[in-house]
C-alpha cells in the first residue's frame, strides 16, 4: 500500500524532451521552471492561485492528448508530454501578442514600465512586427486622483493580477474591474478615487505600465537604476526589498519575490517611505551647544567636546553616565554602543527603547522559554490553525505579519480570534471577537486563562505530563469572573467562547501586541499568555506558540545586545554572574558591580544630579514619552548630553553635542527582525555632509577618551559580537529554525519562575479602569502609514496620510454633534489641548484614538505616565489616559486656542 501512495505523490512528466519527477498537483509552468524552461506569462503569480486570464502561457501538450493548454492553470498528469517551443505554441503566442497589441498603446518611451515591461520583452522575443489585426486603441484619461497610484487604463491588458493580489494577499479588495467589454477598466469601485492601504502590491504585479507610482512618476528608467537588496527598517517585520537608486538618489522600492519574511509583499511604509534619507531637514554637520544655540562645528571638535563631557562625568564618580540606544541602530552599532557605556564609560546605566514595552515580551519569553523574540516564524503563522491576537492591531503595527495572519485564515478557513480595545481591521475577519475597555488587557488575559482552566480546555498531554503546574494554576484562578467582567466590560460567556475556539485548534499561535507588553503589569500579562499557551499545548506542539511583536525595527537586536540594565550581551540576565563574567572576559574589563538604572530611574537620577552626562543614539525619549515622564527636564539638567540622530529631534534640541547619523540606506550592517532573523542592510546612497554611522561615532569618542575601540568595518564588530551573541553568526535564520523551545527550558521554568510570583502575577492592578473625573478613555497608538517620527519625514507618506486627527466613535460623535474636521478640546489631569476630530465607526463608544506619530502634538502630553514596578520590567505605561472631550464651539474660540 505504501508504495502505491508514494507513486501517486510524484509523477513523471516530459517537457521539451526533458523528463522530470514532480509532485502531484504541479502545474506545467512550475515544472518548466524547475527545468529552467521559460514560459511567458502575464497573470501568473507564484504566490496566488492561477488566474488563466492572459492566455500567453498556452503550450502544446502532445501526450496523453494533443491539445493546447494553459501552462499556469493545468495540473500535470503522469506521463504528460509538453512542448513549449513547438511551432504551434509559438504561433499561438504570437497571435496572443498581436491581439494584445491591437489595444495596447505604443507609448513605451513615456511609460514608466518601459524597459522592464513583460509585454515589451515578449513582443521582442515572440511577437511579429506585422500585426494582421485592425488596431483599436483606447483613449481614457489617466486616473491620477489617488495620492500614490496612477491608473492608465489604456495600457491595461486586463490580466487581473492586481485585483488578485489585492483580494488574495492583501485581502482588502480595494480594486476591481468595472464596466464590460471593450471599456473594461481596473480601479476603485463606482469609479471613485482609490483610497486604500496603498500597499502598492498591484503596481508590483502589473506586467505593463497600467499602474504606476505617483511618487516616482517619470523619474527613472529601469536600466539607469542600481538595485541594492536591503532590509526595511520601519517595523519589526524586517522585509527584504530592492532599494533602487539613480545616481545615488532613491528612485523607488521593489519587492523581491519569495525572499525574506514578507515573501515579496510590502506595505505602504516599505513601498513609499524612501524619501526621508534625502530630506532637507537632515543634520549634516556636528553641532555643539554655545549658550542657547546649537552651532555647527568640526567633527574633531564635536568628538573632543563629547569625550570631555563624558570623561568628566566618569571621573566624578561611578555611574554618573547613562546611555540610551534605539532600535534604529544596527546590531553592530548597538553592540559597540553597549560596550562604550559599560566598558569605556564604566557605567551600568544602559537602557534602550526596549523600555517602551518590548522588554516585557523579550524577557518573559527568554526566562520562560529560552527564546529571545518570537517563538514562531512567519511561515508558522501562515500555517497556523488558529491565531489569537491580543492588544495587537496587527495590520497597522506589523503589516506583513498581518498578511501572514490573513493568509492563515484565508487558506484553511481557520479562525482568527481577536481581543482588542477597538474594532481593528483584522477583527472584522475574526471568528471570535472581544472588544474590551482600553487598558484592561491583563484582565482579559486572566479571563482567558481562567476559562481554559475552568472549562476543562487544558491540553490532555500537558495535564498528564505536568499535573503539578496545572494544579497550581487551577488553585490560583479559583475566583469569580466578576473582577474580570467589571473593568473589561466583557461577558463571561464571550470569554469562554473565545477560549474554547482557541483551545480547539491544534496549532494555535498567540500574538501579543504593544498594548499587552506596554500596558499595566505588562510582564505579568505576558507571562499569563505563556501560561495560556502552556495550558493549551502551545509550548509543546511544534508550530504553535506565544509571541510578542516588537514595534521598532531592531528591538530584538537591542535585547540580544543586552541593551537594558537587566540584560547582558547575548541576551542573558545581568544577575547571571557567569554571563557577566563571559562579557567581562571578552571585553577584558571589569563590569560595574551593581545593576544599573532603567530609563525612568535614570530620569530621576538626572533630575537629582546623580547622573550628569548621557549619550543617546537612535532614539528620541523626549519626543516618544509624554511630558509627564519628565524626560525633557531630566535630559535638560545634564552637564553633557551627546545625541546622534538623523534629524534634530526633541532630545537632540536639548543636547550639548549632536552628531549627524546615517540612515539605513547609507550604512552597512545587520538588523534582527522580530522572529530572530539577522538580516543585512547595505549602503547604496551617499550620506549627506559629515553624517557617519553610529559605530564610527562611538569609535571616535572611545578613541578620544583613550580607550580605543577600533574596527575597519561593521563586519569586524559583528565577528567580535558573535562570540557573545551566537545569533549574529548566521543571517536569515529564524528562532523557530534555531530550535525553538526546548523541553529542558520549559521544565526549568515550570520548576522555577512559573511558580514563584504566581500570586502577584494573577493579582489585577487596583488602578484598572478606576472611576475618575474624566469619562473618555484616550489611547495613543500606531497607524499603518506612520510607525514613528521617522516616517513623518517622508513627503510621500505625508501626502498619503498627514492627518493627526482624533478618532472617536461615530455614533457618539453624532450625539455630540461633532462632524469630521470639527475641533474638540481634550482635558485631562495633565492639561488640555484642541485637536481635529474624525468620527470612525470602528472606535468603541467612550474611547478615543490618537495616532502617535505626530510628535509635536500636545495630545501625547495629556497622558499620565504610570511607572511600572521593577517586577513588571519597569515599563512606564504611557499609551492610555482618561480625558474629557468637549466640542469647541465657534471658529474664533478654536482659532484662539490653536
Amino acid at each position, binding site marked *: 500500500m505504501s508504495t502505491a501512495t508514494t507513486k501517486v505523490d510524484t509523477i513523471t512528466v516530459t517537457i521539451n524532451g526533458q523528463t522530470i519527477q514532480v509532485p502531484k498537483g504541479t502545474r506545467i509552468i512550475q515544472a518548466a521552471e524547475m527545468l529552467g524552461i521559460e514560459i511567458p506569462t502575464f497573470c501568473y503569480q507564484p504566490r496566488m492561485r492561477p488566474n488563466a486570464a492572459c492566455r500567453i502561457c498556452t503550450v502544446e501538450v502532445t501526450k496523453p492528448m494533443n491539445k493546447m493548454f494553459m501552462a499556469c492553470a493545468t495540473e500535470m498528469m503522469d506521463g504528460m508530454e509538453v512542448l513549449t517551443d513547438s511551432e504551434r505554441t509559438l504561433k499561438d503566442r504570437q497571435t496572443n501578442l498581436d491581439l494584445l497589441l491591437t489595444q495596447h498603446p505604443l507609448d513605451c*518611451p513615456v511609460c514608466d514600465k518601459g524597459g522592464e515591461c513583460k509585454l515589451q520583452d515578449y513582443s521582442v522575443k515572440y511577437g511579429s512586427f506585422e500585426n494582421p489585426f485592425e488596431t483599436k486603441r483606447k*483613449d481614457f484619461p*489617466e486616473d491620477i486622483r489617488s495620492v500614490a497610484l496612477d491608473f492608465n487604463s489604456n495600457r491595461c491588458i486586463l490580466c487581473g493580477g492586481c485585483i488578485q493580489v489585492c483580494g488574495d494577499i492583501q485581502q482588502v479588495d480595494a480594486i476591481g474591474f468595472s464596466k464590460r467589454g471593450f471599456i473594461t477598466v481596473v480601479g476603485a469601485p463606482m469609479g471613485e478615487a482609490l483610497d486604500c492601504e496603498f500597499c502598492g502590491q498591484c503596481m508590483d504585479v502589473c506586467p505593463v505600465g497600467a499602474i504606476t507610482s505617483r511618487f516616482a512618476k517619470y523619474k527613472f528608467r529601469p536600466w539607469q537604476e542600481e538595485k541594492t537588496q536591503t532590509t526595511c527598517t520601519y517595523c519589526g517585520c524586517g522585509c527584504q526589498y530592492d532599494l533602487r537608486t539613480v545616481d545615488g538618489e532613491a528612485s523607488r522600492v521593489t519587492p523581491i519575490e519569495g525572499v525574506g519574511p514578507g515573501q515579496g509583499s510590502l506595505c505602504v511604509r516599505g513601498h513609499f517611505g524612501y524619501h526621508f534619507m534625502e530630506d532637507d531637514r537632515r543634520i549634516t554637520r556636528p553641532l555643539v551647544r554655545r549658550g542657547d544655540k546649537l552651532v555647527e562645528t568640526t567633527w574633531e571638535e564635536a568628538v573632543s567636546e563629547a569625550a570631555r563631557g563624558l570623561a568628566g562625568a566618569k571621573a566624578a564618580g561611578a555611574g554618573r553616565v547613562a546611555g540610551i540606544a534605539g532600535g534604529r541602530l544596527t546590531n553592530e552599532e548597538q553592540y559597540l554602543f553597549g560596550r562604550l557605556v559599560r566598558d569605556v564609560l564604566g557605567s551600568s546605566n544602559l537602557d534602550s527603547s526596549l523600555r517602551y514595552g518590548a522588554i516585557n515580551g523579550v524577557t518573559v519569553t527568554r526566562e520562560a522559554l529560552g527564546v529571545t523574540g518570537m517563538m514562531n516564524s512567519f511561515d508558522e503563522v501562515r500555517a497556523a490553525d488558529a491565531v489569537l491576537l491580543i492588544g495587537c492591531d496587527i495590520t497597522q503595527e506589523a503589516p506583513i505579519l498581518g498578511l501572514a495572519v490573513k493568509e492563515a485564515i484565508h487558506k484553511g478557513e481557520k479562525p482568527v480570534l481577536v481581543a482588542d480595545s477597538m474594532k481593528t481591521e483584522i477583527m472584522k475577519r475574526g471568528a471570535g471577537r472581544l472588544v474590551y475597555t482600553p487598558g484592561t488587557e491583563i484582565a482579559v488575559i486572566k479571563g482567558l486563562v481562567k476559562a481554559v482552566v475552568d472549562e476543562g480546555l487544558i491540553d490532555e498531554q500537558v495535564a498528564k505530563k505536568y499535573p503539578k503546574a496545572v494544579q497550581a494554576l487551577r488553585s490560583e484562578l479559583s475566583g469569580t469572573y466578576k473582577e474580570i467582567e467589571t473593568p473589561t466590560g466583557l461577558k463571561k460567556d464571550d470569554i469562554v467562547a473565545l477560549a474554547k475556539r482557541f483551545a480547539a485548534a491544534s496549532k494555535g499561535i498567540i500574538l501579543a501586541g504593544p498594548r499587552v507588553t506596554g500596558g499595566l503589569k505588562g510582564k505579568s500579562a505576558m507571562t499569563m499568555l505563556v501560561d495560556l499557551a502552556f495550558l493549551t499545548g502551545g509550548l509543546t506542539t511544534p508550530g504553535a506558540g506565544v509571541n510578542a511583536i516588537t514595534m521598532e525595527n531592531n528591538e530584538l537586536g537591542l535585547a540580544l545586545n543586552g541593551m537594558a540594565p537587566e540584560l547582558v550581551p547575548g541576551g542573558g540576565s545581568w544577575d547571571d554572574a557567569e554571563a557577566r563574567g563571559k562579557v567581562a572576559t571578552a571585553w577584558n574589563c571589569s563590569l560595574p558591580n551593581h545593576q544599573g538604572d532603567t530609563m525612568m530611574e535614570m530620569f530621576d537620577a538626572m533630575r537629582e544630579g546623580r547622573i550628569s552626562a548621557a549619550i543617546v543614539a537612535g532614539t528620541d525619549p523626549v519626543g516618544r514619552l509624554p511630558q509627564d515622564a519628565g524626560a525633557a527636564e531630566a535630559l535638560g539638567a545634564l552637564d553633557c548630553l551627546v545625541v546622534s540622530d538623523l534629524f534634530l529631534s526633541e532630545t537632540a534640541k536639548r543636547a550639548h553635542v549632536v552628531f549627524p547619523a546615517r540612515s539605513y540606506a547609507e550604512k552597512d550592517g545587520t538588523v534582527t527582525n522580530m522572529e530572530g532573523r539577522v538580516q543585512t542592510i547595505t549602503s547604496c546612497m551617499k550620506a549627506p555632509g559629515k553624517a557617519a554611522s553610529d559605530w564610527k561615532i562611538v569609535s571616535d569618542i572611545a578613541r578620544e577618551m583613550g580607550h580605543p575601540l577600533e574596527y575597519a568595518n561593521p563586519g569586524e564588530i559583528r565577528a567580535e559580537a558573535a562570540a557573545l551573541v551566537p545569533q549574529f553568526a548566521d543571517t536569515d535564520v529564524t528562532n523557530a529554525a534555531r530550535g525553538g523551545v526546548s523541553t529542558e527550558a520549559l521544565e526549568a521554568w515550570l520548576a522555577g519562575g512559573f511558580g514563584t510570583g504566581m500570586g502577584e502575577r494573577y493579582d489585577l492592578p487596583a488602578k484598572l479602569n478606576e472611576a475618575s473625573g474624566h469619562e473618555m478613555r484616550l489611547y495613543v497608538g500606531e497607524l499603518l502609514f506612520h510607525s514613528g517620527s521617522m516616517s513623518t519625514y517622508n513627503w510621500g507618506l505625508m501626502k498619503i496620510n498627514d492627518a493627526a486627527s482624533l478618532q472617536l466613535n461615530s455614533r457618539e460623535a453624532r450625539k455630540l454633534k461633532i462632524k469630521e474636521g470639527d475641533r474638540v478640546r481634550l482635558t485631562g489631569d495633565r492639561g488640555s489641548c484642541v485637536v481635529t476630530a474624525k468620527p470612525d465607526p470602528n472606535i468603541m463608544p467612550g474611547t478615543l484614538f490618537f495616532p502617535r506619530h505626530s510628535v509635536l502634538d500636545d495630545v501625547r502630553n495629556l497622558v499620565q505616565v504610570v511607572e511600572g514596578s521593577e517586577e513588571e520590567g519597569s515599563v512606564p505605561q504611557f499609551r492610555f489616559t482618561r480625558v474629557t472631550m468637549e466640542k469647541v464651539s465657534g471658529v474664533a474660540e478654536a482659532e484662539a486656542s490653536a
Partner: protein
Amino acid sequence: MGLIRNIFMTELLMGLKIVFMQMFKPTITLQYPHVKHPIPDGYRGLMSLLRYEDGTERCVGCSLCEAACPSNCIKVVSDEVPGQPLVRYAREYYLDITRCIFCGFCTEACPVDALAMTKVYEAAVYDRRDLMFDKAKLYELGERYLEDGKAYLTHHRMDDGTLHPVEGLGDNRYHFPAVDAEHGGVQPEQIGLTAEALEVEETTR
C-alpha cells in the same frame, strides 16, 4: 645605365615633372576659415535638440538616447512637467561632446525626432568645460541650426515613411492621455459610446 642615371639625376627630374605640371593647373586650396566646404545633408556634426513649431520641447525624456549611446556621453534626467501632470519631459539633459563619437545612434533611437545633428564641425573651444552641453545649449543649437537638423532627419529617413511623410519634420508627438481630475477613470464618450447606449446599459443592470 646606372652611372648615367646618377649623373643626370633622372629620378629628381621625374619627380619635378609632377611639380611643374601642377604649377600650371588651377588651384583647389580653400581659404579656410574664410572659405568653407559645402557640407552634405546628413553630416554628423554637433548635436542639437529641436522644438515643435509651437515652441514646446520635443524631448520627452525617455532616455533611449542615453541607452543607445556607445560612449556613455548622454545623461537625461526626466520628470513631469511642473503644473502639467503626466506630461513627460527632460528636466535636465547633458551631452559630453568631449566623449561623443558622433555616431548618430542617439538620433536613431529618439522616438520623437528631438535629436538631430547639425553641420557644425568647429567645436574647438578654449575651455573644455564649454564642451559639456546642457539642455539650454542643445536647444539653442537646435534653434540656430534648425535647417541643418531638418535636413539631417530627412536625409537619414528617421521615420520609415509610413507614419508620416519624410519631407520636413514628422509630427510624431506623444499623446498623453488627458487628466480629468473630476472624473478620471472611464470616459465612455471618449471611445464613441453615446449617452443613449450608456442609459441602456444602466437600465439593463
